[in-house]
């Protein structure tokens, strides 16, 4: 075994035994004035720290899954709120004032017959077809909409949308919404997010696919959920010979505020 002192001596003998060439002073001077190449080793500590941080986060998630998800959710929500606030400040966005009391009645939904509904709307109603076999028609409700004019700073009543509601087996329900197809509106969200309150004051969000199609000047919207599947919605659209409106096919030109 090489003892420490012996190893030092042999190492020195070995290194000193290597013949060094003459000093290439001109080459060194050239390199002194050449641009300095990026030393990739400098990045290694940062990569190492990043890796350690990712590992620590992964361990935290594995050990405290519930707390981690709550923390992540809080970070996302806070980040979104902060980004939204910045965007509003940059665009000088101000929320519209609440609608006047005089329009309260206009905000209420009303059950109507098909004939009465046709009288209230500006588009030609194409009733849903191709419904699931267990669907039972419940009724049509008007869905009032108010429009805020930013230049005039006034609220006004506009033609309502219509909600077709159906009941199904297993106490399930679903609805289809029909409204005037305004080519100035869009884009439409590909998904609808349902917010559920969970135990412990937490909020859960579930994603649901949204389908929009056009029949003449009527635009119909349906969202898949427990009451109706995406396949059943597509069957309705097909039976109505509806023309699909892609979620990103249009850009918003006018802003509509739909009230519940």
């Amino acid at each position, binding site marked *: 075994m*090489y003892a420490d002192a012996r190893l030092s001596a042999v190492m020195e003998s*070995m*290194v000193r035994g290597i013949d060094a060439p003459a000093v290439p*002073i001109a080459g060194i*001077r050239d*390199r002194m004035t050449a641009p300095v190449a990026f030393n990739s*080793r400098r990045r290694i500590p940062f990569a190492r720290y990043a890796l350690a941080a990712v590992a620590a986060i992964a361990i935290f998630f594995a050990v405290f899954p519930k707390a981690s998800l709550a923390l992540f959710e809080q970070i996302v929500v806070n980040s979104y709120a902060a980004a939204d606030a910045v965007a509003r400040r940059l665009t000088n966005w101000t929320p519209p004032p609440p609608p006047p009391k005089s329009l309260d009645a206009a905000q209420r939904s009303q059950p109507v017959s098909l004939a009465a509904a046709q009288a209230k709307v500006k588009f030609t109603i194409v009733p849903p077809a191709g419904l699931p076999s267990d669907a039972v028609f419940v009724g049509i409700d008007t869905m009032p909409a108010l429009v805020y004019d930013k230049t005039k700073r006034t609220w006004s009543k506009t033609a309502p949308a219509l909600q077709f509601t159906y009941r199904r087996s297993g106490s399930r329900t679903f609805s289809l919404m029909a409204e005037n197809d305004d080519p100035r509106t869009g884009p439409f969200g590909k998904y609808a997010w349902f917010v559920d309150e969970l135990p412990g004051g937490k909020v859960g969000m579930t994603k649901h696919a949204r389908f929009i199609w056009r029949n003449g000047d009527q635009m119909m919207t349906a969202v898949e959920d427990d009451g109706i599947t995406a396949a059943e919605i597509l069957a309705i659209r097909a039976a109505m010979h509806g023309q699909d409106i892609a979620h990103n096919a249009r850009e918003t030109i006018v802003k509509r505020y739909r009230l519940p």
Partner: protein
Amino acid sequence: MALSIDPALVAAARSDDLSLEGLIEAVWPEAFRVAASILRDRALAEDVAQEACAAMARSLDALKDARTFAPWFYRIVSNYAISTARRRRPTIPIDAANQCATHFDSSDAIDLYDALAALPVDQRAALVLHYYAGLNSFDIAAILGVAAATVRFRIMLARRALAKALSQPNANSDEVLSHVR
């Protein structure tokens, strides 16, 4: 420490071109030998030594204490050598002329030179810097960008591998660790 440079020369090299040239001539053999020990390739070692000398000359003003020149310079050389070794793909030398010209004065040195070839570059560098340059594990840790304990562990592994390569199976790693501080 193997490299012994007069601090006055270092101080003078900061402002005087001739002194800088003298400093380069003084450190050049050391730069080449250390690079060659780590890289085991003459052409690469020359390239690394030139680059290290140029880097030393460029950043000499950043050296606060001229008395710490030697570890500082070893750091530059070994950094360049290790990064070059890591970039280089492992190859089997086919040109004997490309091997380092040597005139070892003992068979032990020849054996050690051959045995070092089997070590990973980090272990080889740690061995050279510790046993030849005389740097402690903390200095080497700063060069390699790892913890001092890691350096000691690598030296232990390197010594164990050397012992095996040199057909000395009685390696005592505890003894090694006690020596590397």
